[in-house]
């Protein structure tokens, strides 16, 4: 349990330490840096993905944007969306397990397994978002 939380904390600390001053100074817009628990962080990541997805949808609906850009966004979104939803499910599962743990209805091992599951989905999600970037960069 401690190792898993330490890994999450290490990831976040690394993220914060590599963040530029401009990013840290814009904390009010940076939900990921504000979040403290894996569930909150996943919500922040998912929410950030949604912001990007909504902007991509706006592009899709914009006349004059080349089809190749729209197709690139479409493909990248098709990859990222299922990973985002799996991350959501994993975070939700952790919340349920914590509640059960508080009532003595489950074990720490179950929580550890759920945290590892979330971590795996979480770290697969972001490269998918990065692929979205790549497709757009290649086609702009």
């Amino acid at each position, binding site marked *: 349990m401690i190792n898993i939380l330490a890994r999450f904390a*290490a990831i976040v600390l690394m993220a914060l330490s590599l963040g530029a001053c401009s990013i840290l100074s814009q904390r009010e817009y940076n939900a990921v840096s504000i979040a403290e628990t894996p569930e909150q962080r996943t919500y922040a990541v998912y929410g950030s993905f949604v912001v990007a997805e909504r902007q991509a949808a*706006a592009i899709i609906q914009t006349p004059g944007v080349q089809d190749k850009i729209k197709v690139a966004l479409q493909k990248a979104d098709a990859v990222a969306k299922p990973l985002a939803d799996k991350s959501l499910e994993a975070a939700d599962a952790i919340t349920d397990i914590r509640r059960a743990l508080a009532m003595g209805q489950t074990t720490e091992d179950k929580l550890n397994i759920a945290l590892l599951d979330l971590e795996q989905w979480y770290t697969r999600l972001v490269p998918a978002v990065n692929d979205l970037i790549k497709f757009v960069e290649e086609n702009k």
Partner: protein
Amino acid sequence: MDVLNLVLTLLGNLAVLSGDPVLGAKGKAVTSLLTLVQLARGGSEGLKELQKLADQVEAMVKEGRAPTDVEWDALKAQSDEAHAIIQNFKPGE
């Protein structure tokens, strides 16, 4: 085109950074997401949405709680709606 510039700015800043040797790809993944704040630079709508998201998460932190089912459902609904628009696009239309 504000919306296009907004997304290209966002996506252009979501660069994959070199990973920490200890954390490897995991560190890379989380770090790159931080730059989503750049999304706010390109347009007021993105700014408002990011600020709202940050306010929501800040409230969770203050209250010491996880996201509620209602919050998750609302977020997923927005994603589902945007996803449907994106996936319904057909080239040449």
